[in-house]
């Protein structure tokens, strides 16, 4: 099935309570699949088409504030529109899943795939100091797996999680093993798991209030410090990456999502020519595999970062490498997917020679 369809199936199966979305290419199959599945007749999951991405992210805010497993999905321009709500959700420490199937920008751009929302995703696209745990699937299987993982991480840390795919992963068809069905949480389970949830105030507790307002600067700094200490825990515990032929590599390519698939082929081609190349694929873009890149920087001669953008993740690779060896960049923009030949050629001209 398609990557987008895998997300829809995985959401129903992992006990998602509510999906709120607005159509936008190249991810509309997520809501279309959900509407065909009619999960309100089986698991009881609610699926609602909102009037805008602004509204859908705020419906997610409301649902997440009740401790419910809720999600939305969109593509780049729509995710830009959601940034206000994402900032509130991060500050309100509400767990939810946001899917961005990236397309080329800026502006209305193109419906072709892109990775140019990296900065928006991992540096905080909305206002204020917050982070989104950002998962970068590179296959249809990972679209399904990361939907489940995304909710797990969201509820582990009470924070929004972003599943950052691109138009290729959303649209391509591959075999996929869907996750097993899990029942939706009962209200008793939600009260135990998320005692802060606004489910209505019984006599035996104080009111639960979801708010992001603190007029006193000291109070607001305390909230910020709490968020930052949570992010340090996330950075310590949740880094995910995959290495391919890195053990004896002289040169390492760093790439995520669709670019990583292209680069894996380029690494195989380089190896066939006797160039000892390897690939490091960050699976979590935030938290970033900084320590692993630092370790590789001790033993390799150079890095090439490949992205479908003007070069965004390359900044984080350079920060990790910290000048030890050269870090070069190769990328295509506006919806173009680089070919393995192009990547191999960039590796040779920018790094090897």
């Amino acid at each position, binding site marked *: 099935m398609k990557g987008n369809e895998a997300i829809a199936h995985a959401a129903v199966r992992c006990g998602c309570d509510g999906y709120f979305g607005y159509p936008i290419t190249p991810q509309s199959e997520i809501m279309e699949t959900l509407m065909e599945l009619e999960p309100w007749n089986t698991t009881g999951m609610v699926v609602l088409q909102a009037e805008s991405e602004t509204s859908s992210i705020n419906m997610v*805010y409301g649902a997440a504030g009740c401790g419910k497993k809720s999600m939305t999905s969109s593509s780049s321009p729509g995710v830009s529109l959601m940034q206000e709500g994402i900032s509130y959700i991060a500050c309100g420490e509400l767990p939810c899943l946001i899917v961005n199937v990236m397309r080329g920008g800026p502006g209305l751009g193109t419906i072709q795939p892109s990775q140019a929302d990296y900065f928006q995703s991992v540096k905080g696209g909305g206002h204020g100091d917050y982070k989104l745990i950002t998962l970068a699937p590179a296959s249809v299987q990972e679209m399904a797996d990361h939907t489940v993982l995304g909710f797990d991480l969201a509820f582990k840390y009470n924070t929004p999680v972003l599943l950052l795919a691109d138009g290729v992963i959303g649209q391509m068809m591959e075999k996929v093993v869907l996750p097993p069905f899990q029942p939706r949480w009962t209200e008793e389970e939600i009260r135990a798991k998320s005692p802060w949830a606004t*489910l209505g105030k019984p006599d035996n507790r104080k009111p639960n*209030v979801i708010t992001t307002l603190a007029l006193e600067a000291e109070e607001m700094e305390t909230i910020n410090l709490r968020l930052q200490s949570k992010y340090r825990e996330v950075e310590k515990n949740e880094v995910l990456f995959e290495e391919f032929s890195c053990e004896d590599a002289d040169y390492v390519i760093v790439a995520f999502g669709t670019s990583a698939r292209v680069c894996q082929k380029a690494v195989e081609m380089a190896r066939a020519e006797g160039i000892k190349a390897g690939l490091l694929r960050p699976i979590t873009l935030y938290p970033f595999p900084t320590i692993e890149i630092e370790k590789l920087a001790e033993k390799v001669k150079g890095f090439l970062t490949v992205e479908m953008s003007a070069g965004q993740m390359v900044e984080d690779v350079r920060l990790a490498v910290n000048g030890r060896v050269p870090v070069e960049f190769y990328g295509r923009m506006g919806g173009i997917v680089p070919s393995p030949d192009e990547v191999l050629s960039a590796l040779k001209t920018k790094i090897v020679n």
Partner: protein
Amino acid sequence: MTTAEIINPANLVYVKPKLLNDKPMHYCPGCSHGVVHKLIAEIIEEMDMQEKTIGIAPVGCSVFMYKYIDIDWQQAAHGRAPALATGVKRLLPDRLVFTYQGDGDLAAIGTAETIHACNRGENITIIFINNGIYGMTGGQMAPTTLNKMKSSTCPTGRNVELNGNPLDITKLLAQLDGTCYVTRQSVHNIGNTRKTKKAIQKAFENSMAGKGTSVVEVVSTCNSGWKMTPEASNDWMVENMFAKYPLGDLKNE
């Protein structure tokens, strides 16, 4: 009458609603918010709905509403309260869910969220405080500011050519198929306050009966923003606001 006689339960004619917290309100003397808050607290208590109610607070003067009524609350971004309420009510259909919004929140930045929540017929209640001005930010022009009415961003009075017309959004909401009850009330005297209480109670009952969206507009004063005494504000509201925003039911199905 001695103090002991006055506090004798048999002689009590009024008690503060249990759900109204013992917390001094930050509202200016003469503001309508406090009265409407009290009505909401009374109604939830009388309907025995504390355990089943989730309120959505707006951005504006009533942003701190969650401090005053002893129920669960979510505080929304500016204008987004109906979207939050939709998310809550869809996933908790047996709960009483209401938003409380000012004119800037509901009729300017949140127009889309308001219209579409009403058009979908979400089983929520929207309480709309219309004082024709942005109170919290210091008296700027609102979508409901009357023609020729002065504010800090139309200091010589609202000029239609420059600022456009005042928006009667409640009339617009009454035309939508998703609304079941749309009414306009006020709380400037005892009689009207009682009518407002009845209206909010009816709206809450509609929400629980799944009849669609109920909208209760309360035409209100902002004496600080209007730069008048509370008493003069009431008189000015009756004379000017009621002419553009007449009281009564716009829809009652």
